């Protein structure tokens, strides 16, 4: 029982009048409900690690835009007189085996790797969403066949597919894009399908259907906003994977090839001289690791922010 230790004189007769018009005391007592996105954003902002990662990624973004031009060097033409120059005021990070400024080349390489990762992620999300939505929406035999196709693709180790595509199409940025994307959308499609299967049972989608809206319109208008959280997470966690894959393929000689510039190629060049000029290996490797680390930490932060399970 709630205990009340009141002194009698605290009670006045006017306290004991029933107020039939209850004007909003209840609203004052209840906290303002917070929307899902607002709440998620608030939680993300409180996460110092995730916000730091966001800032770091912002800085990287600025650098891949302006970085190559800061020093004003020609980063393509060989300049034998500066061959393997050490770090100095002239070449902040040194010069490579052909005498080109590593600082400028580093940001060009980062730009290439980053753009490849972004484009691949975009393709993955768009194709995955479309494929998954179509599967889930039409169901039945369509779903069955599309699912089998998906299963066959996922059954092959993705690195093998990538390498085979690279053989068939030759070494170029375009074939690398195709090779990286060709199987990556499968998990996204599965997740999207699963989510939509769940959502399409909900009343508001049935209501929309009953009111005669077209299938694809319903999918796009009603269902996709619901899986935004999952997709945002998918994007944040996919990008590091692509950055890794580009670097690895270029390193073993099956990705981009010189004269192209990318993080993988810079690391590969760095390896050749790593015993005498370690700076040529360390800096590209560090940029790669920091970028991936920032994406991973941001991904963790997003997972915590977007998952209602953590909402306590």
């Amino acid at each position, binding site marked *: 029982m709630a205990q009340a230790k009141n002194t009698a004189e605290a009670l006045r007769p006017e306290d004991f009048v029933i107020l039939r018009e209850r004007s909003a005391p209840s609203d004052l007592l209840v906290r303002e409900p917070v929307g899902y996105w607002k709440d998620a954003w608030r939680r993300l902002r409180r996460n110092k690690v995730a916000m730091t990662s966001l800032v770091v990624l912002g800085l990287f973004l600025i650098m891949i835009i302006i970085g190559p031009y800061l020093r004003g060097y020609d980063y393509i033409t060989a300049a034998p007189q500066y061959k393997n120059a050490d770090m100095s005021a002239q070449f902040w990070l040194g010069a490579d085996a052909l005498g080109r400024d590593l600082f400028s080349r580093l940001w060009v390489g980062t730009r290439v790797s980053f753009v490849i990762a972004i484009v691949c992620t975009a393709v993955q999300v768009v194709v995955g969403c479309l494929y998954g939505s179509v599967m889930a929406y039409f169901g039945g035999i369509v779903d069955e066949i599309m699912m*089998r196709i998906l*299963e*066959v693709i996922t*059954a*092959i*180790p993705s*690195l*093998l597919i990538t*390498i*085979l*595509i*690279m*053989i*068939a199409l*030759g070494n170029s940025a375009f074939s690398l894009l195709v090779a990286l994307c060709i199987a990556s959308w499968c998990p996204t499609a599965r997740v999207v399908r699963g989510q939509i299967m769940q959502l399409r049972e909900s009343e508001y989608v049935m209501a929309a259907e009953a009111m005669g809206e077209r299938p694809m319109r319903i999918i796009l208008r009603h269902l996709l906003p619901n899986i935004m959280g999952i997709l945002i997470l998918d994007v944040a966690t996919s990008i*590091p994977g692509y950055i*890794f894959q580009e*670097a*690895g393929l270029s*390193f*073993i*000689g*099956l990705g981009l090839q010189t004269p192209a510039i990318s993080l993988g190629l810079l*690391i590969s060049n760095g*390896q050749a001289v*790593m*015993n005498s000029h*370690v700076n040529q*290996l360390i800096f590209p*490797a560090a940029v*790669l*690791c920091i970028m*991936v*680390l920032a994406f*991973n*930490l941001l991904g*963790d932060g997003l997972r915590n922010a977007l998952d209602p399970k953590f909402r306590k």
Partner: protein
Amino acid sequence: MIKFVLRRFLELLLALFLIATATFFLTAAAPGDPLLSRTLALPEASRDAMYAKYGLDKPVLERYVITMKGMLHGDFGESVVYQGQTLQTILRDKLPVSARLGLQQLIFGVLVGLLLGVIAAVKRETWIDRCIVVFAVLMMSVPELVLGLIFQKYFAGTLKLLPVIGWPTGKDLWFGGWKYTILPTLSGGLLYIATYSRLLKTSILDVLDQDYILTARSKGLSEPRIVWSHIMRNSMIPIVTRLPVTLAMCLTGSFMIEKIFAIPGIAAYFVEAVSANDLSIVLGETVFLAALFITVIFLTDILYTIVDPRIRIQGGKR
């Protein structure tokens, strides 16, 4: 159950057929002539004989039929680049090397990873947990490529503690020459530590939230008993079902590690074959690796039904 297994098995065969077909046409479409360098200096007649020997004089479709027929009998054709070598001889030489590397990475990585995962879950929200989490994220963010190079440079190059490159062969193939294997094992194994420690920690925390743990406590069971038969058993499900795929990945070798440490495994050879346009070997290795992978996934599906009784098999569909 039998229906399910049978159906999955047929799907497996279909997938393999599709993969072989796709691989054949992709390699056939590849630019470049594998015999060009070897036949350049030969007279016209012997050059034609060479092309005829590998069947490269025939149209693509005919070669496809011949190749597929051969495949049914396990004959993938002779290596174009290395005379007298076939897929079988190459696998016999190279697979054990990759398998040892993979198994060492797996055993080291998974065991340490699981241990760290349990520790992180038990000591959650303490500095120990935070250290493990930070370590795992760091390890996930440093590609094995960079890790391998750094290890090679410092532990082998600068400190001269371990050999820079190489791999035990001959009688040391399985149980010797450990010092050669340390760096490659570490470089690849750290990623497994990161993956498995995170996986197990999440899984344990997930299980701890379940009502049945409350039920177990309400029965007055001892803590070790709760941990063992209620928490661990359930939180190991995602681990057990993931292991086979990791195993398959390990066995098929690690492209970067083999390249960095000059390890004569199948992954390194695959890259070599690809670069040299060695069609029959590329085709054979792809089909072999895919078959291994698919079989493992197939076995995982069956394993799933054993470790998790909730997954019922009805009419062949999960």
